């Protein structure tokens, strides 16, 4: 490992900064009174962030394509969720589909 002091400093920077992001949201929300339309926009914004996170973690790995097996599994999970299948079924079906596809040699 590189110089331990440097790694500790980097680790603490990441920890403190991440905590600052987490802490400031609720504080700002408490201080500022948002009009109803802005509150709605913030709520849609959270869903947009989560959707983008699901899309990028399903389809990409680093800067490239993640291969077919993972997005196929997530797609199966998504269809099941849309059809109101239980959460447990959705998540396990996604993992099982991906695992079986990889077993069959799909990247």
């Amino acid at each position: 490992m590189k110089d331990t002091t440097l790694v500790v400093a980097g680790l603490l920077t990441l920890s403190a900064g991440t905590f600052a992001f987490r802490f400031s949201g609720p504080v700002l929300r408490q201080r500022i009174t948002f009009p109803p339309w802005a509150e709605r926009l913030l709520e849609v914004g959270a869903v947009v962030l989560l959707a983008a996170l699901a899309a990028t973690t399903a389809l990409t790995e680093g800067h490239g394509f993640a291969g077919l097996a993972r997005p196929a599994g997530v797609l199966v999970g998504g269809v099941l969720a849309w059809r109101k299948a239980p959460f447990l079924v959705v998540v396990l079906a996604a993992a099982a589909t991906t695992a079986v596809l990889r077993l069959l040699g799909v990247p």
Partner: protein
Amino acid sequence: MCSIYRTLAGGTLRDIALACLAVWFIGLSYGAIAVASGFPLWVPAAQSVLVLAGASEFLFVGIVAAGGNPFAAALAGLLVNARHLPYGLALPDVTGTGRGWRRRLLGSHVMNDESVAFALAQEDLPRQRAAYWACGLGVLLCWPAGAILGALIGRVIGNTDAFGLDAMFPAVILALIVPALRDRVTVRAALAGAAIALATAPFLSAGLPVLLALAGVLGVVTSKQAAR
């Protein structure tokens, strides 16, 4: 904390437990990868407790192991974690602001993708609060537990991708936002945001594409003003 059990239906608690189990599995591979890249056990252990945000920790370990400067790695990780600011703005008062400092600090620290998604999926504030805390505390236990065990048993774990575990995180998030996506305006914004993130992911550093996805919300504003 026993109010969590009274407030949440058994089904929701079981779902949260499954999400935490998925986090534990990812933690195993994180700890194993960190040790395999030459870090001593305390690095993934400390990170998993203090940072408590998986993607940024993987990135930090990856950049430093490849010879990068730890500060540059921390900045890259912070870019990935910047989404927690809009999360906090969007959530109703689930962390318990104004209920004493200790609760507030812990409530902020347990904010993560899963706890936010579980909170948003609930119908009323008491349930949102209970789901947020149950999932947040569950992840606070499972992520470090997985990371430390993974670092200890290291090579034994092998390739967790073979079990399709990498499909679990996006499936968990997707399953939790599907109810919100039944709303026409929300689904349009979410699709636009996901398209922006996917289109920019090949060029931009990790974290930025997801932040840029927020522009998907702008479509909602303009379409609403046009409708008026």
